[in-house]
């Protein structure tokens, strides 16, 4: 399969995502924000970073890029769309995912590994993971406090759209393990069909033992087509671009 990684001005995890995909045996190509097509990619990844400097509001300007219309069509047709960190913020701004991401309750940027629990193993990002599985993944954000309330939050929970929740090392979900004040400890959500997913942690930073862990592999591998071989390919060494 082929995955595309969108490069907005200010994206800074685009190269990391391209590397992580290729190292996981997935063909990956960059998609330029000024393009109006996803170039036939089966999965589209919106990487982390500071698209348009996070000016105005995180993701608020990037959602107006020409590529976003194409991504909207791709999502509607059932194609896989993944937003990581700033990409998640862009997807909420674009209305492709519910909710919004507010400033962390501690009012500071936080970069450290956290634990998350797989709440929904049917989404495009988690279909090769087990429900209840606990992963260690790094976060790196200042605006990662997922927020939604009232009936919309209830609906999100009832429809199984909460994909990942922050938790303690043993999988317990309690407020002390919430790094940023997200409502219901939510770290990642999907749309109703599960083909559009956004999360604040960075799975692409957790696929190489040299970088502190490989818990992100099951997420990256889930992007492969469901009927592709379920075996996890060995990490390939690829030269950087």
């Amino acid at each position, binding site marked *: 399969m082929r995955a595309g990684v969108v490069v907005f*001005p*200010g994206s*800074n*995890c685009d*190269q*990391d995502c391209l*590397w*992580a995909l290729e*190292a996981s045996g997935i063909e990956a190509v960059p998609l330029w924000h000024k393009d109006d097509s996803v170039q036939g990619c089966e999965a589209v990844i919106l990487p*982390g*970073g*500071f698209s*348009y*400097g*996070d*000016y105005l509001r995180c993701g608020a300007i990037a959602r107006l890029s020409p590529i976003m219309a194409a991504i909207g069509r791709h999502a509607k047709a059932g194609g896989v769309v993944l937003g990581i960190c700033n990409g998640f913020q862009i997807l909420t701004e674009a209305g492709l995912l519910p909710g919004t991401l507010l400033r*962390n*309750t*501690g*009012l*500071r*940027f*936080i*970069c*450290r590994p956290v*634990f998350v629990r797989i709440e929904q193993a049917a989404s495009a990002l988690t279909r090769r993971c087990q429900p209840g599985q606990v992963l260690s993944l*790094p976060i*790196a954000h*200042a605006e990662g406090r997922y927020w939604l309330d009232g009936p919309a939050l209830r609906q999100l929970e009832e429809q199984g759209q909460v994909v990942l929740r922050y938790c*303690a*090392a043993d999988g317990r979900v309690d407020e002390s393990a919430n*790094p940023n004040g997200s409502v219901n400890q939510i770290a990642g959500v999907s749309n109703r069909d599960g083909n559009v997913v956004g999360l604040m942690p*960075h799975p*692409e*930073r957790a696929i*190489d033992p*040299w*970088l*502190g862990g490989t818990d992100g592999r099951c997420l990256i591998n889930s992007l492969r087509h469901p009927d592709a071989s379920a075996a996890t390919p060995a990490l390939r*060494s*690829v*030269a*950087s671009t």
Partner: protein
Amino acid sequence: MAFERFKQWLGAGRPPGQSNDATAPPGLRERYNLTEEEYRRIVTLLNRRPNEIELNIFSVMWSEHCSYKSSKVHLKKFPTVGDRVLQGPGENAGVVDIGDGWAIAFKIESHNHPSFIEPYQGAATGVGGILRDIFTMGARPIALMDSLRMGPLEDPANRRLLDGVVRGIAGYGNCVGVPTVGGELVIQEMHSRNPLVNVLCAGVLRTDRLMRAAAAGPGNAVLYMGSKTGRDGIHGATMASAQFESGDEDKRPNVQVGDPFMEKKLLEACLELIEQGLLVGLQDMGAAGLTSSSVEMASRAGTGLRLELDRVPLREAHMTPHEICLSESQERMLAVVAPDRLPAVEAICRKWDVETAVIGEVTATGRWELFWRQAPVASLPICALTDDAPVYERPMKTPAYVQLLQSLPLEMMPVPGDLTKVLLTMVSSPSLASKAWIYQQYDHMVGTATVVPPGADAAVVRIGHADKAVALSVDGNARYCLLNPYLGGAIAVMEGARNVTCVGATPLAVTDCLNFGSPEQPETMWQFAACVEGMADACRQLGLPVVSGNVSLYNETNGQPIYPSPVVGTLGLLDHLDRIVTPWFQSEGDLVVLLGPQGDALGGSEYLRLIHHQERGLLPDVDMVQELAVQQASRAAMAAGLIRSAHDCAEGGLAITLAEAALGTITPLRPGGLGAVISIPAPAHLRVDGVLFGELQSRIMLTLQEDKIETASKIFTSYSVPWAVIGRVGGDRLTITVPSAPSSPGLAGSSGRDGRPVIDIDLTALHNTWHFGLPQLMGDTSCR
């Protein structure tokens, strides 16, 4: 018409009706920071009086910041060449060959003055400036580090400064997407009114893509790239060359405002231009803006430049030529481009939404000629601004305080009864406490290359996802330099090399930032010269060239200079990732070995400062030959695969080294951590606090499996390095005894010498004190 007169003036060599009178204009010192003698020198060089703009140009180009006029004669002592040096000092950054076609560009720079006036923007633009220095060389920045020196955090003004500086570094570095992988924080009273913010950046490039900042080729176009020019930061370089006085907070307009988003676009555009081989030269507009950048480019190429200032993209209307020349607006670059390459260059800039303007051309005149609406406004020989700038051999004088400070009445400082409590006090102090509160605010993982994250002796960053990595460390102990500037300078270099050795790397080169008081004070000049000499000697002994650096003088407020504060950035190379060693204990049962000398010397130690409130004493002896041997022996044992962990003995002494090695083992999956049982036999006449907390140099603590000790000991012996097994890894406590050495029977009952542990503490308790020490001081309850 003023311009008409000026034209005649240029033609005639001197203005009509005016003699070659060298009487200085009023306010020379206050407005231009020039002396009468310097003014006379200008008149002699030009053979006429400079006009207002020209005088402003001299003011910045001859400022300490741009001309290095007081430091130059001393900096010549540094070794700057080596087999791996592709570019030494004099360019935007030094470049070191790391093999397989790769090279590292790196440099450290200060942004002290701006950070004091406006901490967020001051620190942020410091990051921006050093990033540009790296990518102008054709290198992609891969790591940032910062050395922060602040006043005591009990004072809310200092907390505000530290908070702002950390936020500024985070705000800029995180946005551009370059990981901040380490640094240091030092607390010292002197920095309350003069904090230091030094930022190091390293970038990676292919050796065949090395770019230089020379304006070669008369007829080539001078291309302006990036942000528009505004009125911000005018005379920033001059400001950085004067000391602070009360009320200087009003200098806020002199501080620039950063736009990291523009920087990121500029970075990508520049690297693409260099990759495609479209540029002749590239230079960032840093201190003294367009003036300094263009003059330096022409100076390096031995050419001239003709610039049309009205073509410079402006942010505000009605800016004068003088303001355009001296603006320090951020995120601007100057490129030299062959005319036939211009369309391709402009297309790439358009792709990245980077504005460009052709503002002039390279000439063969050797002159720097400025035009404003076709009329000449300044015409100066390039060499008058650079090579002919004054160079001073400033008077030096040994300060009277040295003798007083070196005396240490230890008998007045009894050994505390509870040394466990002392350890707790020490690990909670911000200089020794965990810096997680700081580095968790930095994205230290972006780039998926940070193999050893902040918190170790050195950070390790992988190169191109290959089996190759570089180690980086920043070091410097200003208290040592106050007590003995020669040894303090030498120790900064030695410790940097030791730190990169501890992660398994071979040190290759250093960059330095020399932060001192006013060079016009003979005592400060003495400190400067001695520090540089110590650093140079240590560099030669350890085989480390100095490839780049920065001098920051006039770090004084109300006549009070800072301690002499050289900061050394060290670059090390790892040819294989499996050679990486970390400071943290690895396995139950491993032996703990101390390489290097033992003793109880307390002079200049962190312990004396924190516990006895004394910053004095003779520094322990330094043996550079032994230093090299200890490092080589460690590296040899690591290369043989014998070593499980390695940690430098530095501030806080052996006890802190042991504590850190144990504390780093605490993780959510191992909340109890991995401790050690340590026994350090010492002759009875030694002080227990000295054995635990004294800061002898040239010491590395290693751990290894018991069955490896025989092989390792042969290596240590072959390098003639003293070594001793001092304990064993295990348990969840840190327990240290200091029994009397068998050769000298102990004094029964004297503090800690009766066989009972002098330090015995549960790691979880120690961890809480250490980990939350800094956020507690900063009043941040959200830190985890």
